C-alpha cells in the first residue's frame, strides 16, 4: 500500500509540470510492481508530434518497428500498438491501468521486463508524458507511421521544424502495381527555403484514397484489386497526391531465373570479382562477373558437376541454398538467413524445377534511383534511397531490396545495405546503385548544421558563373575574388597560346582602361596561330601521332597526318567534321592522311576502345572480357560497338611505306561468350539499320559526332574545360563513368549544349570559358573555400606542361630550340612526331603518345626536374646563349631597369619594393653580369615562374 501511495504521489507531482520538484521527489518514489493499478487525475494531453513521438522514436521503435519486432510487438503505428504483442495490447486508449506499455516503463530498471531494457529507462518526465498521453486517449494522427530516430537526429528535426518548407516531393511520383506480389515503397522529401532537403516519410500522414484498390503498410503500397486511385500525403501545410494504378492484382507473377534469382546473386555478393565472379570462380564454382552471362550461370548451377548444386527433390537442401545460408561450410560465410526474402526466392525457383526462362521474358531496360539529389544538413541526417526498375513489357518493380548500394565518399555520406544514407562530414558523396547490368548514381551534399552562411550576391560574366555559383551555394562556399590584371594576362597567355606576354603586350593591357579589356585580350589571343598549335598538339596526343616502325607509321605518314590535323584546326573546321573525316577515312595513308587513324592502331578492338575513350571519354576496356565492374557497359555493349570496326580492310600501297584503308564490306567480331557476332549498336544508343555492304563506320561517325550522341559534346567540352582549369568537371577527362560523376553536372550539360549550338566551333567555347568570372578568379582562398579542390571556387596553381615550359624558357632567355625535322627556333608545341623528345621534355612529363590516355601528360613535380632546372643546360646554357644580360648592360640599362625587365619577362610584374631592395644590394658591381645572371637563374627556378597561377 505504501508503494502504491508513493507512486500516486509521484504521478501527481509529475503532473504539476515542475521538473525541479520532480527531481526532488524522485528519491521518494517507489517503483511500481507488476499488477499494481494506477490511478491518475485528469490532465491535458501532451502534443503527439512535439512530445510523444520523439520518445517512441528514440527509445522504442528500434526493437518494435519495421525492422525488428521483439515479443511480437510493434509500436510504430497506433493499430500495431493497440493490437500489442505476445503479452497483449500495449496501449489501451484512455486506460492507463490496462496499457502494458506504461506498466513496463515504470518497472525498476533491474526488472527483467523493464522497458527500455538494459538500464536505458526513460526519464521521469518522459514517463509522465506517455502516461498523460494514453490517459487522454492516445491520440495518434491519421496515417502516421514512426521510424527509429536517435537523439542526434531528433535534435536535427527539432531545428528543421522551425524552418519554412517550400515543397514536398514524393518518390516515385506515380505508382504502378502490376502483379499480385508487386509492391512499391514510398519516400517523401521536404525541401526547405535554404535548399536543404529532409526525408519526412515517417512524419507525413499517408493515406490511400480508395483502400479497396491498394493498401498501405510500412510506407509500402500493396495491390488489392485492379483500378486507379491515389495516395494522399500531408506534411505540415504541404499536401500532395500520388497517382496509383493497379492491374493484375490477382495474378501471381511466375518466378524467373533472370528476373528474380540472378538479382539475388548480385545483391548477396555471390558474383563479385573476389568471389564466384572471379575469372576462374571460387572453390570450383564460377558465376559470371556481376551476372553478364545468365545462360551460362544457369548452366553452371543446374548442369555442372552433375546436379550436385541443386536438389529438386529437397529444394531447401540444395547446395546452392545451404551454402548461402551457411548451413554447410562456405568460404564466403553466411550471406542471408532462412527467414529472408532471398532464401524464399531461391527455394521457390528450385521448387518450380529450377527452370530456364522462356525466350520472351521481359528484360530490365533501365533503373531509376530516388531521390534524384539531396542536400543534407547536419551529421546524422538520413535519407532512404529507393530504386525503381523498368522492364521491356512496360511494368516496373521496386528493386530497392535487390540493389547494391555504394558511396564514393563514406566520410560525407555512407549508405547501408538497405539504401539508407547517413550524413557525415561536410562534403559531397555520390551514392551509386547497381541492379542487373545498370548502375546509376545521385549526388548527396552534406553541410554542417547551423552554418553561418548567407548566399553572397556575386556578379556573373556568363552562364558558367551562374551554374558554378549555384553549386557553390549548395556547398555553402563563397568563391575567391577576381585575380589582378597582371595575373590574368599571364594566365590567359599561357593557357591560350602557351607563351608569356612581352613588355608591349603587358603595357597595352595594363594601360587599357576600358571595362571589357579582358574580353578583348581573349579575342586577340584566339586569333594567334599558337592557339591552333596548342590544340593540334593536344589532339595529336589523342590520335597518337608518332612514327612507329612496328605499326608501319613512317615519318612521311606521321608528318602528313600531323599537317592534315593542323590544317583542319587552323581553318576552324568544326570538331564533328574532323571526327567524321577521321572515322570514315579511306584510301592511301599518303593521299588521304586521315586514314592514318587506322594505321597507328591496327587492332580493331583497340580502335573500338580508343574511339570510346577519345571521343566519348569512356574507358570500356573492362567490358571486353566481362561486364564493366564500375560502369554501365556490358560485354554485349562492347561487342555491339566493336561491330562498327569489324570490316576495316588494310592493304599495302604502291609505296611500301603507304597503306590503303578500305571497307571490306564483310567480317565480324564474335562475342566471346556465345561465339556469335553482335549486331552493331551505338554505345549508349540505338541499334541502327545498316544496309548490307554499307560502310558501318560511316553510320557510326554520323551518330558519334552528332547531338544524338550525348557523350560527344560533353566530352569535348570537358576536355576544353580541363585545359583551362587544370582539371575537368569530370576528372580524369577520359574516365567518364557512373562511379566517377561530374562535380557539376548542370555546368557540364550546359557547356555541351552550347558547344552543340555553336556547331562544334571550339573557339566559341574557349571564349565562353575564358570570359567567365570563374576562370578569372584569384588563387587566394577564403575560409569557406580553402579545402575545395573540385568546384572551381578559386584558381589553382598548375605547373606548366613540359612543352609550354620549354617554350617559355626559350622565350624569356631569347634562345632557340632545335628539334629533329623542324627549323631552328621552332617551338616544342609544334613537334609533329611523338617520338621526338629531349631530356627536358621527357623529365617534365611530355606525353609519349603510346596510348590515348590523358594520364600520359605528367604534371607531378620530381627531383629530376629540380636538378635539371638547377644544374641542367636548359637554364644555365640558355642564360648565357641568349646574352640578354650582356646586351642590357651594353645598352646602358641600370641595375634597377634590368631587374624590372627580368621580372616582367618571367612574372609579368615588376619586383616589389622589398624584392628590389634585397636583390639590388646583392649585386656585386665587380661581377655585375654574373650577379644579374644569377638573379635570372633564380627567377627561372622559382615557383612563380614554373607555375601558372
Amino acid at each position, binding site marked *: 500500500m505504501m508503494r502504491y501511495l508513493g507512486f500516486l504521489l509521484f504521478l501527481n507531482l509529475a503532473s504539476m509540470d515542475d521538473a525541479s520538484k520532480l527531481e526532488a521527489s524522485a528519491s521518494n518514489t517507489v517503483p511500481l510492481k507488476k499488477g499494481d493499478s494506477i490511478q491518475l487525475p485528469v490532465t491535458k494531453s501532451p502534443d503527439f508530434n512535439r512530445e510523444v513521438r520523439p520518445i517512441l522514436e528514440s527509445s522504442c521503435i528500434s526493437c518494435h518497428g519495421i525492422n525488428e519486432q521483439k515479443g511480437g510487438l510493434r509500436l510504430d503505428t497506433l493499430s500495431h500498438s493497440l493490437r500489442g504483442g505476445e503479452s497483449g495490447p500495449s496501449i489501451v486508449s484512455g486506460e492507463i491501468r490496462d496499457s502494458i506499455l506504461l506498466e513496463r516503463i515504470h518497472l525498476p530498471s533491474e526488472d527483467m521486463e523493464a522497458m527500455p531494457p538494459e538500464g536505458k529507462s526513460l526519464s521521469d518526465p518522459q514517463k509522465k508524458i506517455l502516461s498523460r498521453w494514453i490517459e487522454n486517449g492516445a491520440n495518434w494522427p491519421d496515417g502516421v507511421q514512426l521510424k527509429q530516430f536517435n537523439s542526434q537526429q531528433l535534435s536535427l528535426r527539432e531545428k528543421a521544424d522551425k524552418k519554412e518548407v517550400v515543397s514536398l516531393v514524393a518518390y516515385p511520383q506515380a505508382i504502378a502495381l502490376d502483379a499480385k506480389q508487386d509492391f512499391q515503397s514510398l519516400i517523401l522529401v521536404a525541401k526547405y527555403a535554404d535548399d536543404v532537403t529532409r526525408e519526412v516519410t515517417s512524419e507525413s500522414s499517408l493515406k490511400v484514397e480508395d483502400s479497396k484498390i491498394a493498401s498501405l503498410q510500412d510506407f509500402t503500397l500493396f495491390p488489392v484489386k485492379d483500378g486507379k486511385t491515389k495516395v494522399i500525403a500531408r506534411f505540415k501545410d504541404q499536401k500532395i497526391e500520388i497517382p496509383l494504378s493497379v492491374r493484375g492484382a490477382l495474378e501471381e507473377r511466375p518466378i524467373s531465373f533472370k528476373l528474380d534469382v540472378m538479382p539475388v546473386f548480385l545483391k548477396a555478393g555471390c558474383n563479385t570479382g573476389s568471389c564466384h565472379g572471379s575469372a576462374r570462380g571460387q572453390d570450383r564454382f564460377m558465376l559470371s562477373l556481376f551476372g553478364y552471362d545468365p545462360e551460362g550461370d544457369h548452366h553452371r548451377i543446374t548442369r555442372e558437376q552433375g546436379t550436385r548444386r541443386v536438389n529438386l527433390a529437397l529444394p531447401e537442401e540444395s547446395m546452392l541454398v545451404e551454402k548461402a545460408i551457411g548451413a554447410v561450410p562456405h568460404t564466403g560465410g553466411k550471406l542471408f538467413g532462412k527467414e529472408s526474402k532471398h532464401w524464399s526466392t531461391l527455394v521457390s525457383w528450385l521448387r518450380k524445377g529450377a527452370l530456364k526462362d522462356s525466350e520472351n521474358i521481359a528484360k530490365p531496360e533501365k533503373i531509376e534511383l530516388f531521390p534524384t539529389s539531396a542536400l543534407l544538413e547536419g551529421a546524422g541526417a538520413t535519407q532512404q534511397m529507393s530504386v525503381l526498375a523498368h522492364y521491356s513489357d512496360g511494368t516496373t518493380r521496386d528493386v530497392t531490396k535487390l540493389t547494391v548500394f555504394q558511396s564514393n565518399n563514406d566520410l560525407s555520406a555512407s549508405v547501408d545495405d538497405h539504401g539508407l544514407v547517413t550524413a557525415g562530414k561536410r562534403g559531397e558523396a555520390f551514392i551509386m546503385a547497381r541492379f542487373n547490368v545498370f548502375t546509376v548514381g545521385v549526388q548527396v551534399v552534406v553541410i554542417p548544421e547551423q552554418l553561418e552562411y548567407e548566399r553572397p550576391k556575386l556578379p556573373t560574366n556568363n552562364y558558367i558563373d551562374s551554374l558554378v555559383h549555384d553549386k557553390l551555394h549548395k556547398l555553402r562556399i563563397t568563391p575567391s575574388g577576381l585575380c589582378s590584371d597582371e595575373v590574368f594576362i599571364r594566365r590567359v597567355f599561357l593557357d591560350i597560346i602557351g607563351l608569356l606576354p612581352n613588355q608591349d603586350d603587358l603595357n597595352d593591357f595594363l594601360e587599357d582602361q576600358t571595362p571589357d579589356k579582358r574580353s578583348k585580350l581573349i579575342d586577340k589571343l584566339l586569333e594567334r596561330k599558337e592557339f591552333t598549335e596548342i590544340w593540334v598538339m593536344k589532339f595529336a596526343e589523342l590520335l597518337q601521332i608518332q612514327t612507329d616502325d612496328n605499326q608501319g607509321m613512317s615519318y612521311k605518314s606521321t608528318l602528313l597526318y600531323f599537317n592534315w590535323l593542323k590544317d583542319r584546326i587552323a581553318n576552324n573546321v568544326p570538331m564533328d567534321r574532323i571526327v567524321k573525316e577521321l572515322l570514315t577515312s579511306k584510301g592511301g595513308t599518303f593521299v588521304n592522311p586521315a586514314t592514318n587513324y587506322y594505321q597507328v592502331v591496327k587492332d580493331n578492338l583497340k580502335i573500338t576502345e580508343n574511339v570510346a575513350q577519345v571521343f566519348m571519354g569512356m574507358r570500356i576496356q573492362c567490358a571486353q572480357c566481362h561486364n564493366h565492374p564500375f560502369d554501365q557497359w556490358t560485354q554485349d555493349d562492347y561487342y555491339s560497338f566493336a561491330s562498327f570496326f569489324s570490316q576495316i580492310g588494310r592493304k599495302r600501297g604502291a609505296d611500301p611505306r603507304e597503306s590503303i584503308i578500305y571497307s571490306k564490306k564483310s567480317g565480324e567480331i564474335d562475342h566471346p561468350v556465345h561465339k556469335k557476332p553482335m549486331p552493331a549498336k551505338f554505345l549508349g544508343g540505338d541499334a541502327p539499320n545498316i544496309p548490307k555492304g554499307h560502310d558501318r563506320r560511316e553510320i557510326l561517325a554520323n551518330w558519334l559526332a552528332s547531338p544524338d550522341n550525348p557523350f560527344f559534346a560533353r566530352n569535348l567540352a570537358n576536355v576544353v574545360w580541363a585545359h583551362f582549369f587544370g582539371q575537368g568537371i569530370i576528372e580524369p577527362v577520359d574516365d567518364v563513368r557512373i562511379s566517377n560523376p561530374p562535380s557539376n553536372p548542370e555546368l557540364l550539360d550546359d557547356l555541351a549544349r552550347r558547344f552543340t549550338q555553336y556547331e562544334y566551333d571550339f573557339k566559341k567555347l574557349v571564349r565562353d570559358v575564358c570570359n567567365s568570372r570563374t576562370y578569372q578568379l584569384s588563387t587566394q582562398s577564403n575560409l569557406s573555400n580553402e579545402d575545395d579542390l573540385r568546384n572551381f571556387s578559386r584558381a589553382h596553381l598548375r605547373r606548366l606542361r613540359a612543352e609550354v615550359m620549354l617554350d617559355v624558357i626559350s622565350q624569356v632567355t631569347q634562345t632557340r630550340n632545335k628539334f629533329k625535322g623542324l627549323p631552328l627556333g621552332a617551338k616544342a608545341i609544334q613537334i609533329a612526331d611523338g617520338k621526338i623528345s629531349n631530356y627536358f621534355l621527357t623529365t617534365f612529363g611530355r606525353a609519349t603518345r603510346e596510348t590515348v590516355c590523358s594520364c600520359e601528360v605528367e604534371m607531378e613535380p620530381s627531383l629530376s626536374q629540380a636538378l635539371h632546372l638547377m644544374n641542367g*643546360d636548359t637554364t644555365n646554357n640558355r642564360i648565357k646563349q641568349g646574352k640578354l644580360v650582356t646586351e642590357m648592360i651594353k645598352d646602358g640599362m641600370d641595375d634597377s631597369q634590368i631587374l624590372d625587365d627580368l621580372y616582367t619577362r618571367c612574372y609579368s610584374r615588376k619586383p616589389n619594393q622589398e624584392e628590389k631592395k634585397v636583390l639590388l644590394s646583392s649585386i656585386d658591381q665587380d661581377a655585375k653580369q654574373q650577379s644579374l645572371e644569377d638573379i635570372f637563374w633564380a627567377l627561372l627556378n622559382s615557383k612563380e615562374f614554373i607555375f601558372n597561377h
Partner: protein
Amino acid sequence: MKNSPCFEFPSHFSRREFLHVGLVGGLGLTLADFFRFKAHGAQKYYESREGKAKSVIHIYLPGGMAHQESWDPKPYSPLEYRGPFNSIPTKIPGVRFSENFKESAKIADKITVCRSMTHGEAAHERGTHNMFTGYRPSPATSFPSMGSVVSHEFGSRRNLPPYVCIPKVPNEFAGSGYLSSSFGPFGLGSDPADENFKVRDLTLPDQICDNRFSKRKSLLNVVDSHFRKLEKSDALGAMDKFYNDAYSLISSEEARNAFDLSKESDKLKERYGRNEAGQRMLLSRRLVESGVRFVSMTYGGWDMHQNIQAGFEKHGPNLDKAFAALISDLDDRGLLDSTLVMLSSEFGRTPKINKDNGRDHYPKVFSVVLAGGGITRGQVYGSSDAFATAPEDNPLSVEDLATTVYDRLGIVADKELMAPGDRPMEIVDGGKVINEICV
C-alpha cells in the same frame, strides 16, 4: 581520482579504439607509442623504426614472368604443362629451378622462393598495381607505392633520395598515390647499361663554384618568398622539397658518388653482366650501400604469349647471372642481412602452353623471390599444385607479402596514413606477417 590524468581518455576515444590499444599493447607497444596514438585521434598510429632491413631492392619483371620457366618448374607434368625447358637441382636439397636459372641455383641457399603467390588480377596494369602498392586497384583511391610509403615513413638518409627508380619510373603505380608527390620516386632518366651512363644534373655546371651556388640559393629564396607567402598547394610544397633534396645531393660528393658506376671494377661489372639486368642491379647495390632506402628496378619484357622458349633464352640468362651476382655480392659485403631483395612480376603464366607456344596471363599462382633483410635463407615457402594451377599450401596474398616486407623494414602495415578528405587508410589493409619466412 576523477581528475587523475592517467585515467582520462579523450571523449572521442571509443571503446573499440581502447581495446585496440590494449591489443597492440600486447604486441609491445610502449606507453610513448600509446600517447602518440592518442595524439593522432582515431587514426591508427605506430612509430616506424628501422628494422632488420635497412633498404630494399625491388627487381620488377614487367609483363608477367612465367613461374614454370623460372622458380617453379614442373618436371613431372606432361609436356604441354612442363614447357620447353628442363629443371636443375639447387643448393636447397630437393628443390629444383628451371635450367634457365643455373647461377641462381648455386645461391639458392641464400634466398627464399615463395611459390604460392596469388591474386585475382589478370590485366597487366591491375596486377602491377597489386605488386607495387599491396592493394587491389580501387576506382576511388590512388594508393602510394611501397617505395613512397618507405620515403614517407623514413625520409632520406645520407643526403640521398629515399626512393630511386632504375632506369626510370616504371609505371603509374610506382608513384606517391594519395600521399604528397614529394614522396614520389627519383627516376634516373638514364640507363646504367649505356656505355656513357651518367645521372644528369647531379653536379654543378662548370663555372658555378660552391660559393656562387650558395649565392644562387639565397637569391632563389628571395624571389620565391613573395609567392610562397601567397600560395599554398601540394605541388608547391613538393617542388620545394625536391629543391631541398637536390641541394643536399649536390652538396655531398659521397651521395653523388652513389650514382657513379665508373667507380666499380671491370671485374665486378663482368660478374653482374654487361647488360641491362647486370648493370641495373649493380647500380642498385651501389645505391643501397650508399644510403638509398628503396630501389625499384625493372628488367626485360616477360609478356610471352608467343614462343616462350625464345623469350626466356633472350632474357633468362642475363637475369639469372645478374641476380646471382647481386645476392652473393651483397652477402660478400655483409649487406645482405640488411638489404631485402624482392624479385617479382605482376603475375605468372597459364599452366598449359598455348597454341602459339607461349603462355598467357595467370595470377592465381606464381612465384616471388625474397632474400636478405630479415628474410630466411635457403627456403621454399608455399607451393603450387602439380600443374602450377593453384597454390597448394600457404597461399601468399598481395597483402601478406607487402605486410611482411614492411615489417622487415620496421613499418607496421596496419598504420593509417591520411588520404585526401581526412580519410585514414591502412598502409596495407588486412595483411599479416608471414613469420615462417622471417628471421
